[in-house]
Structures are given as C-alpha cells and as structure tokens.
C-alpha cells in the first residue's frame, strides 16, 4: 500500500527510527514462529525440553506424518475441509438470496427481515450450545458431519446476508428492471446478473467464513466425538492434552499443520480479507 502523498507527515530523520522500531518488534513477533518450526522439526528421540532455542533435526515431515496418525488428525483434516468449503458456500448463497430479496425484489418489511437475520450473530455461541447438543442427541445429529455442516452454515448466514445486502444496495435498481424487460425470471436474474456482479464480495465472505470454520474449537468440542467427525482444531486440542507431555515435538508439528492452511490463505488474500472485514463493519 504505497502512499501517493509527496510530503511525508513526519520528518525524514524519524523514518529510520520508525523502521528500526518496527523491525525489532517484528523480529520479536516472529520468535514464537521460529520456536514452533525448529521444535516441530525435532525427532521425538532427540527432543528435549531443555534446549528449545537451537535447531537440531529436520524431521518435520515425519513428525507431521506421526501427528496425522495420532488422535485421528488425518480423518479430521478431511471432514474439516468439507465443513470449511460446503458451509460457507451455502451460507454465501443463502445470504446473497436474502440480500437480493430485500434490495432487488424490494421485499415488504425488508429491513425488519434483515435485522432479524443479522440479529442471529449478535449473541454469544454459549446461548445455543446446550440446546443444539440436546436436540442433536435426540435427533441422531450428534457426532455427524451433517450436523456440523448445518450449524456452521447457520452461524455464517447473518454475516453473509449483512455484507450482500450492503453490496446489492450499491447496484442501481434499473439493472434489475432492464433484466425484467429482457424477459428474465427472478431466479435467472439472481444467478446470471446479480451473483456474477458480486463475485468479489462473495469471495471475501467465503474466505472469512472458511477461516472461521477451520479455526472453530467450541462447536466441534460440544457437537462431535469421533475422529471422523471432529473438526481439526478440536482434535489438536485433544492431542495436546493427551500427548503434550510425552511427544511434544509431534504436537507442535500438529499445531503447525493445522495453522498453515489458514495462515497461507490469509496472507495470500489479505486484500480480500480486509475488504471483507471492512464491508462487514460499515
């Protein structure tokens, strides 16, 4: 993000100091990343809790392989991928449809309906945990992938509807009227005209929600049990409390494996990500 201003707001001698302060602080911030990587790469036999700062081995891949076997992390990876793709896709479509109904189709009392949908995101998750656990247990949805997809989708809908309504408000209504004159049905207008125009907002919401779902711990903790259904972060927490003492380097490798996808996704899509955050806030 280079600045276009010609005159800097601070004196140029201060620039050196600012750069130095940021560099030092940045290095400090990278220390935990360094410690994670070198210790996750230590073979369980040579790993000691007394020399954490020096790299000794390069067994990262075999440690990751071992982490995949322990605590069923491999099964979790697969299910979590499904959750983190399917739920945001559905939520984005459902949210876009709601925004389309309110803005383009001018639904009666549209704003009230919008508030009703958006209100679902205002409450802490703690308010829905017990009833979901109770109802899921009675309806055989407890510890099923379907159950997880349903709840992840539902909690992603409010934010998605919020952003999509804002986005569609920026599209002139005569776009809709022109499509009607062309004889298109509302469904066709939604899928062929409005959704393509909103692709950047759709991607931004998708990335934010996929990251959120990949990183979820609490819903997975309460609503699932088996290795094949448990989301990956919940499995990692289980692995930490079971093997944190005896096989620390494997647990650290697991932590690295779980963190890498969202960190890479976030760094690659910073622009989309911050736009999504900004869209959600104004």
């Amino acid at each position, binding site marked *: *993000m280079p*600045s276009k201003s010609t*005159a800097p*707001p*601070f004196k140029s001698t201060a*620039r050196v100091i600012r750069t130095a302060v*940021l*560099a030092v602080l*940045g290095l400090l*911030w*990278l220390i*935990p*990343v360094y*410690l*994670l990587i070198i210790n996750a790469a230590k073979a369980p036999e040579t790993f000691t809790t007394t020399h954490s*700062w020096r790299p000794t081995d390069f067994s990262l891949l075999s440690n990751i392989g071992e982490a995949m076997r322990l605590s069923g992390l491999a099964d979790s990876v697969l299910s979590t991928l499904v959750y983190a793709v399917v739920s945001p896709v559905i939520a984005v479509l*459902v949210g876009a*449809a*709601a925004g389309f*109904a*309110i803005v383009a*189709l*001018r*639904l*009666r009392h*549209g*704003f009230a*309906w919008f508030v*009703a949908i958006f209100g*679902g995101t*205002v*409450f*802490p998750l*703690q*308010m*829905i945990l*017990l*009833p979901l*656990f109770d109802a899921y247990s009675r309806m055989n949805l407890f510890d099923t992938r379907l159950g997880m997809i349903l709840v992840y989708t539902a909690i992603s*809908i409010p934010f998605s509807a919020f952003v999509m309504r804002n986005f569609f*408000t920026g599209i002139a209504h005569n776009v809709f009227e022109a499509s009607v004159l062309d004889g298109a049905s*509302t469904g066709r207008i*939604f899928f062929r005209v409005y959704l393509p125009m909103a692709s950047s907002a759709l991607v931004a919401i998708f990335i934010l929600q996929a990251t959120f779902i*990949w*990183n979820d*711990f*609490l819903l997975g903790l*309460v609503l699932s049990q088996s290795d094949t259904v448990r989301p990956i*972060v919940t499995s*990692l927490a289980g692995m*930490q*409390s079971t093997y*944190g003492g005896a096989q620390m380097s494997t647990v650290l490798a697991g*932590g690295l494996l*779980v*963190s890498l996808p*969202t960190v890479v*996704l*976030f*760094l690659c899509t910073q622009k989309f990500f911050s736009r999504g955050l900004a869209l959600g806030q104004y």
Partner: protein
Amino acid sequence: MTSDKATRPKAAKDPYHWSARGFIAPGVLGVAVLLYVPLLWTTFISFTEYNGLGDPEWIGVENYVEMFDDPAFLGSVLNTLLWVGGTLLVPVGIGLGIALLTWNLKGGTWLRLPFLIPYAVSGIGVAVIWSFILGSGGALDQALGAFGFSDTPRWLVDAPLNTVVMILATAWQGVGVNALLFTIGLQSIPKEPLEAARIDGAGGFRLFRSILWPMLRPLTAVVVGLSIVASLKTFDIVQGMTKGGPGRDSETLALTMYKETFVNSEYGLGSAIAVFLTIVTLAAAILYLRQQLSSKHEG
C-alpha cells in the same frame, strides 16, 4: 437504506411478492431454527432444574441466585473483566501504534507482515505454541536462565499472572488485524487537513492528537467494540492453556458456562451463566453501536 422504501409500487400490485419471500426464506429459516429457537430454549432452561434426563423443572430465579453466591463465578467475572481491559490495552493499543509507525513509510507493507502471520492461527494453535514457550522450564525460562534469572515465576500456574500471560499471547495473535484496520482508517483520511496542519507546524504527537485521533474515532469505536465483544467470549486460548486452572483460578465466563453445563451437567446453572454473558455482551454492543452511529452523523 432509504431506497428500500422509495418508489415502490403498491403492495397489491407487487409482482415479486412471493418470489421475494422465497428468496429470503432459507436465510430466515436457517437462522430461526438453528440460532433463535436454541436461544429461547437456553433462556427457558436457565429458570429450570435440568440435567438432560426427564423434564426441566421450573425453579424461577434460583439458578441466578446460586450463580451470584458462587465464588467461582465471581472470580470468573473478574477474570473476564481483566480480559476485556487487557485486550483493549495491549492488542488494540499496539495495533494502533504499528499502524501509525508504518503509515506512509517505505516498505510499511513488509514491516507489517510479521504481525499479520499469527492472526489466522486458531486459538488452540496459539495455545499449543505458547504453552510450549511458557511451560515450566520452557523456552522463556531457558532464555531468562541464560541471563541469570533462574527463579522465574510459574507463568501458567500463579493467578492472576496466568491470565496476564494468556492476554499477552492473545495480543501476539490479534495485533496484526488491528494494525490492518487502523491502516485502512489512516489511508482514508483526506490529505488536505494534514497538509494544513503541517504548514502550521504540527508534527508528531500534536498532529496525532489534533488531526489523526479525531478522524480515526469512528474506526476506533469499531475496533474497540469488536475487541470488547470478542474478549467477553474468551474460551479457546484459556481452555487450551490452563483449562481454567489451577482449580478454577483462570476461568472466564465462557469457560465457567462450559464446565457447569457439559462437565457438571448443571444445565440450568450453565444456561443462567450463558444468559448473563449474553446480557453483558449485548450491553457492550449497544453502547458501542450508539457511539458509532453518533460519530457517523458528525462525518
């Protein structure tokens, strides 16, 4: 928002009445069934004695009375307040500092990068890394030992030190996104008043106080509001690092709710804590929304 109402044909002639309902139905249904019904059910359960077997038995406000008599709950409230204050002070404060330092700075994007890396790590991921660093004889103790400090505190055991170090671990994670948001805010500030102030000789702290801070106010309200709401719900990192312990010393409200409900099967009490947490969160959200709305009128 006004365009929703303008130039709309009379409802009776509205040809899209049913189709609009069809488009909004999935969203309303999903939110109603999976969020609102559970919400009401939790509120109801908080007035009952229930453990998942048999039927809930109405006991009025007894759970709430029990809750406020419980020293563990009161400790949890204090810890949660510490979290709210600490995450405002550290991640939001440092985030603003980094945004200001990188603002209009050559290579600022790259200098911001180290702070952004931890943001997308899950709470449990952060807990795994920091438990390793802060454990007894862990990486931090070794580093301090090298400088001759051998009698280090037990970071994750002594309260309230354990809550403080967990707040710092959260700061490690959260600074980057706050810096990013403040950077977006700084970039949207018009150049003219800045030029004028600089011609008047304002620089450094005066420039910040008289121009930047007032112009950043709406965004600051958003960041502060998000931070408060998020910190009230703190769960993952505490569960991952201390499990609320030792004993119940580092529990937050979200953790106390989880333990009472799913460990002790005290569904009524757990629900009462959830309702309490919700009321506090809503109060905080309303306060900051009001501030945001009033500052929007100024701009």
